[in-house]
């Protein structure tokens, strides 16, 4: 049965159903409903909840819990995510699973508490120090959020790597009907690395310090091979009306939802626009864009930032096609009508036809 829930609360319930045993969080808007939901539910279930003293402490509690083999999660919003980067780098280096939620808000600096998509590069480029990657999942609705959460925990365990859920203030705070029917009990993953006390076995260590540069280099290449496996196996995206499209919009998350409304209006005007919506912001769905570039010349990137997703589109197209751009940074959320007008104008400019 469907329930009306905010994205933040639905995320919390989905995490609980996915076997999240520990949640550590620090208040920051617009993700507080998640921390509050977990405070209530984790205690009811006898699981671990701590309101930490900082985002730095929260991510390091995640690291400790993850090292014991427990499914652990933390969440924050943009300024807090900057603080978590230290711990995410260590999790990646230690090859420890974790789920980290970023309900992005306007930035840089304190910015504001309105929905934004300006943490894209931080999330998809590792974000902290060193050569590492995290899988980045970018859901576009509250229902999809509940489906992405169990996937995030599974991918984290499967690859032993942190996974970022990249939402935004709107996705976190808006209420939509959801069900959790798709969430199955968590699978078992090999736990031959976890720290439990060395009873009946040799002692184990989990560490990222490798003074020997050859050893550190080999560790890096090992991680790179893992990231290649992710790129081969974990790309996820959705297409919308691309079969006859003359212009393809690339947008993700809430941005894609706004774009969808705009495209529906454009179609009513017989303007052939479609969309590719990356669900994994990393690994980025470059192959579908490369495939489309064989027949489509016009691409249109829309994002609620000054231009971050566009870098991945440029890299994917590698000079093919022509990329149009519309960005609204600073927590501004454009309407589908606004985007309809902008895309329509670009479409006519590109086609050389006169706009009616």
């Amino acid at each position, binding site marked *: 049965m469907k329930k009306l829930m905010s994205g933040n609360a639905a995320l919390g319930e989905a995490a609980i159903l996915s076997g999240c045993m520990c949640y550590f969080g620090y208040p920051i808007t617009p993700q507080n409903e998640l921390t509050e939901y977990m405070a209530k539910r984790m205690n009811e279930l006898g699981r671990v909840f701590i309101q930490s003293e900082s985002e*730095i*402490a929260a991510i*390091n509690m995640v690291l*400790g819990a993850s090292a014991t083999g*427990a499914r652990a999660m933390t969440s924050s919003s943009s300024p807090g995510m900057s603080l978590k980067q*230290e711990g995410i780098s260590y999790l990646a280096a230690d090859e420890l699973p974790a789920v980290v939620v970023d309900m992005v808000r306007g930035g840089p600096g304190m910015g504001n508490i309105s929905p934004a998509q300006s943490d894209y590069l931080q999330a998809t480029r590792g974000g902290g120090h060193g050569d590492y990657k995290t899988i980045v999942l970018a859901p576009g609705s509250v229902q999809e959020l509940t489906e992405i959460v169990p996937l995030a925990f599974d991918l984290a365990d499967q690859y032993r790597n942190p996974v970022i859920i990249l939402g935004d203030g709107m996705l976190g705070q808006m209420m939509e009907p959801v069900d959790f029917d798709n969430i199955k009990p968590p699978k078992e993953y090999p736990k031959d690395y976890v720290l439990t006390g060395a009873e009946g076995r040799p002692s184990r*260590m989990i*560490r990222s310090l490798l003074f020997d540069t050859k050893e550190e280099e080999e560790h890096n290449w090992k991680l790179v091979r893992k990231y290649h496996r992710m790129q081969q196996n974990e790309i996820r995206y959705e297409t919308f009306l691309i079969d006859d499209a003359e212009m393809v919009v690339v947008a993700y998350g809430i941005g894609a939802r706004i774009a969808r409304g705009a495209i529906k209006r454009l179609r009513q005007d017989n303007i052939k626009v479609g969309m590719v919506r990356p669900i994994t912001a990393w690994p980025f769905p470059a192959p579908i864009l490369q495939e489309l570039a064989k027949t489509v010349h016009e691409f249109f990137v829309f994002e609620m930032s000054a231009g971050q997703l566009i870098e991945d589109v440029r890299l994917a197209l590698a000079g093919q096609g022509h990329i149009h751009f519309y960005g609204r940074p600073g927590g501004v959320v454009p309407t589908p009508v606004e985007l309809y007008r902008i895309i329509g104008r670009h479409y006519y400019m590109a086609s050389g036809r006169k706009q009616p």
Partner: protein
Amino acid sequence: MKKIYTRPKTMKEAHFHYCPGCGHGIINRLLMEVVEEMGLRDKAICVAPAGCGMLLYNYFDIDTLESAHGRGAAVATGIKRVRPENLVFSYQGDGDLAAIGTAEGFHAANRGEQITVIFVNNGVYGMTGGQMAPTTLTNQVTTTTPNGRDPILAGHPVRICEVFSMLDGTTYLERVAVNKPAAVVKAKKAIKKAFQYQLDGKGFSLVEILSPCPTNWKMGPLESCRWIDDVMTKQFPLGVVKDIP
């Protein structure tokens, strides 16, 4: 022939990387002696720091997890909350606990986390080459206080045990030293007591250990040991700071 002294079974067969006269080797050994004597090898999980103590997992034959600089108490919290039946302790230096990781240590203590912090106070950042630590004494010369620590410019030496004693979550805080045999015996007793308090679920425990760093103090090993008694203990008096049995 009767063997009267041997390597604890909880220690790996490895050579310490510590400088001559450094206290870390003594503290490492004391910890593993206590773990062995209390029969805790199978239950113990140690959180290693950044700094001179960071390689302790090369010596400890127990489960160990590295933490980022200063985050030991938060990492230990994560472990202990999942596995309350384990003995969980962090090993942290003065820069680690009293500067970059003050928040994590302070709040783990305030929550009364059932963990033990082994706090090694040698008054300097050792591994990075002898810079001023929060515990550097007034007028003490370091590479970043070349004219001696001036309290007006660089603040005062931090007494962690006394600060933490104000927190209701703490149950046992003692300052010891490892600069002479009698002190080493006391240090071992303190570690044992702290671990026992944790096993008994009494709350947060911390043992602060004054430890010589001849390399960065620019002193000989013997002189360093004397300096702890003659100078360091004036700022950091030895003894039990808090004990709620």
